[in-house]
């Protein structure tokens, strides 16, 4: 009985918890509630994935109104997979949040933090689950507003400015998407994705459709921080509270990529996007630039959080590149990397949260000799970092492999070379941290620190373990990604 309503509950459960967090007024109570809810949402997402894998795509009519008039929640393999990523990261971040938030956020604001966090989770899950483009926009705004708040809660004064910048650019992005949706509605008279997909092929010569495509691609590009629309990201990730960086880095941009994929493949169709419009070329150029520029800039950062933020830009470039091939292997690379990058960036940022919890800083200089003082945290960082580099038997290798396969299939040898050379750059910037942590002696006046509390360490290590486990057993990730890629390329949801 309840399994019929899982699609609704996936969004509603975290939604209800947000006001409850406000009503609880206590940091601890709100944290407990949020943690339980996050794990519940994770369980729901797993159940949904199992359901989709066994029975195929699900459809849920909100309010009982049939599509295309009512809002439809439609779950196929791609978004079931995305739900697991988002909810899973949320569930793993919450246990860490208790200590980290207690250190970084004033007590009277903690319950509000958890409320905003739950709203962000709700929004992200909603974006992913819905089959209605306007509903998607609404959830996009919920996520964005909650994220601006979360970023602004950072202890550093600069967090406010970062948040404001994020707000301005995020709003532009959301507005572009809204304009695109409006144009589509004007031409087709429908907001349901499946319905849109059925109507657009007949209308694709129309200029409003083309304009809508441009607006949506650029708007989604802003949301997912596609180079050169990434300028909001480094500051937001650097100055946000540690767990927020971990959560947003692992989920928000991935959901942006999902939105882009959904619009390109499901709504507009691969033929329109790649054959009539030169989207492939645009994404490829921007993706390659992102990979190179992001990695290069990361090499020169001294704040490790900032370094990882730039690395995220590069990693998003990989995903854009994967999409740009418009081939099965390219899409598999993109989709698998959604998962893989979520796992490794989540682990890396959570490890930094541990470091910040003990050190009060994530500057490279402050981390001298940390390998001996926080061995587990740094070992986790190294494991996830190796994954970022793409060492075999880690998830990074799997993504890299498919990306190179896709590039070579398309005869684009130079692209393959750039992808792999950029992974050398990843080695360089990850290695700067390792060098400092393991091969440098701490300053004389460095504070004595010990290992981070278990509640923070365990989720961090779990994510790092996932980086290795799914690098060896690829059946779930690659299997789901392959089927999702096939159905995306066939068009239609």
């Amino acid at each position, binding site marked *: 009985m309840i399994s019929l309503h899982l699609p609704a509950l996936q969004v*509603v459960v975290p939604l209800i918890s*947000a*006001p409850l967090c406000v009503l609880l007024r206590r940091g601890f109570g709100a944290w407990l509630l949020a943690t339980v809810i996050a794990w519940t949402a994770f369980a729901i997402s797993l159940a949904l994935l199992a359901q989709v894998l066994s029975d195929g795509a699900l459809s849920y009519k909100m309010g*009982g109104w049939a599509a295309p008039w009512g809002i439809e929640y439609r779950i196929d393999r791609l978004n079931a997979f995305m739900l697991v990523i988002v909810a899973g990261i949320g569930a793993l971040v919450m246990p860490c949040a208790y200590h980290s938030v207690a250190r970084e956020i004033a007590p009277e604001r903690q319950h509000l933090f958890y409320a905003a966090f739950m709203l962000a989770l709700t929004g992200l899950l909603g974006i992913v689950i819905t089959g209605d483009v306007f509903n998607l926009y609404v959830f996009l705004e919920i996520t964005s507003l909650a994220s601006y708040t979360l970023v602004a809660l950072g202890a550093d004064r600069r967090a406010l400015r970062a948040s404001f910048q994020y707000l301005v650019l995020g709003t532009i992005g959301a507005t572009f998407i809204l304009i695109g949706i409006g144009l589509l509605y004007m031409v087709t008279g429908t907001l349901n994705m499946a319905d849109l997909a059925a109507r657009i092929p007949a209308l694709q010569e129309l200029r409003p459709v083309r304009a809508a495509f441009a607006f949506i691609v650029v708007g989604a590009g802003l949301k997912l921080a596609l180079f050169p629309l990434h300028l909001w990201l480094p500051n937001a990730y650097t100055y946000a509270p540690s767990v927020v960086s971990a959560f947003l880095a692992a989920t928000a941009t991935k959901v942006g990529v999902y939105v882009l994929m959904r619009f390109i493949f499901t709504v507009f169709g691969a033929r329109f996007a790649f054959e009539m419009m030169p989207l492939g070329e645009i994404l490829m150029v921007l993706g390659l630039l992102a990979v190179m520029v992001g990695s290069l800039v990361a090499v020169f950062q001294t704040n490790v959080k900032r370094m990882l933020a730039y690395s995220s830009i590069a990693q998003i470039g990989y995903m854009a590149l994967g999409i740009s091939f418009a081939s099965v292997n390219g899409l598999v690379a993109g989709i698998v990397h959604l998962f893989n990058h979520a796992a490794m960036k989540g682990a890396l940022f959570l490890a930094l949260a541990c470091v910040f919890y003990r050190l009060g800083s994530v500057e490279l200089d402050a981390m001298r000799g940390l390998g001996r003082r926080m061995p587990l945290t740094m070992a986790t960082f190294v494991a996830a970092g190796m994954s970022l580099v793409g060492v075999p038997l880690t998830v990074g290798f799997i993504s890299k492999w498919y990306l190179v396969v896709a590039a070579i299939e398309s005869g684009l040898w130079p692209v393959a070379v750039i992808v792999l050379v950029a992974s050398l750059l990843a080695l360089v910037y990850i290695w700067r941290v390792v060098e400092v942590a393991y091969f440098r002696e701490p300053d004389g006046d460095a504070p004595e620190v010990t290992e981070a509390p278990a509640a923070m360490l365990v989720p961090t290590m779990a994510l790092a373990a996932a980086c290795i486990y799914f690098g060896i057993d690829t059946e779930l990730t690659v299997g789901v990604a392959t089927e999702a890629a096939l159905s995306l390329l066939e068009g239609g949801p």
Partner: protein
Amino acid sequence: MSDLLILRIVAKLLIPYILLFGLYVQTHGDFGPGGGFQAGVIFASGFILYALVFGVANARRVVPPRLMATLIALGVLLFAGVGLAALLMGGNYLEYAVFADQPARGNHIGIWLVELGVGITVSAVMLTIFLTIAGRGR
């Protein structure tokens, strides 16, 4: 501003009607122009007028921030709770038709409750934003 006698009297006269109009828009939104969002804004504007004329400090006594926060949360809860109630009564989420034996009646109840939730939240948010901005620099 407290010296402006005419303003104070006119405001005292107007505020009840503004609130009443807000409630009208709220309760008739399901079959006339209006709804929770508009009603919430109108309702909040009554208090905002009060704050403009009688001072923010007085307004804060009337609508304490803690109360506002609670109301925001309660409004959202009401909205989401109605949806859940529909679910518990055997419908889909937000499927109000199950609230009564006749679908039209059920829809009526459901929409009314949901709009109430929206109204509460919107007016509380409006007031919070106004008071927060007005309170800056003091």
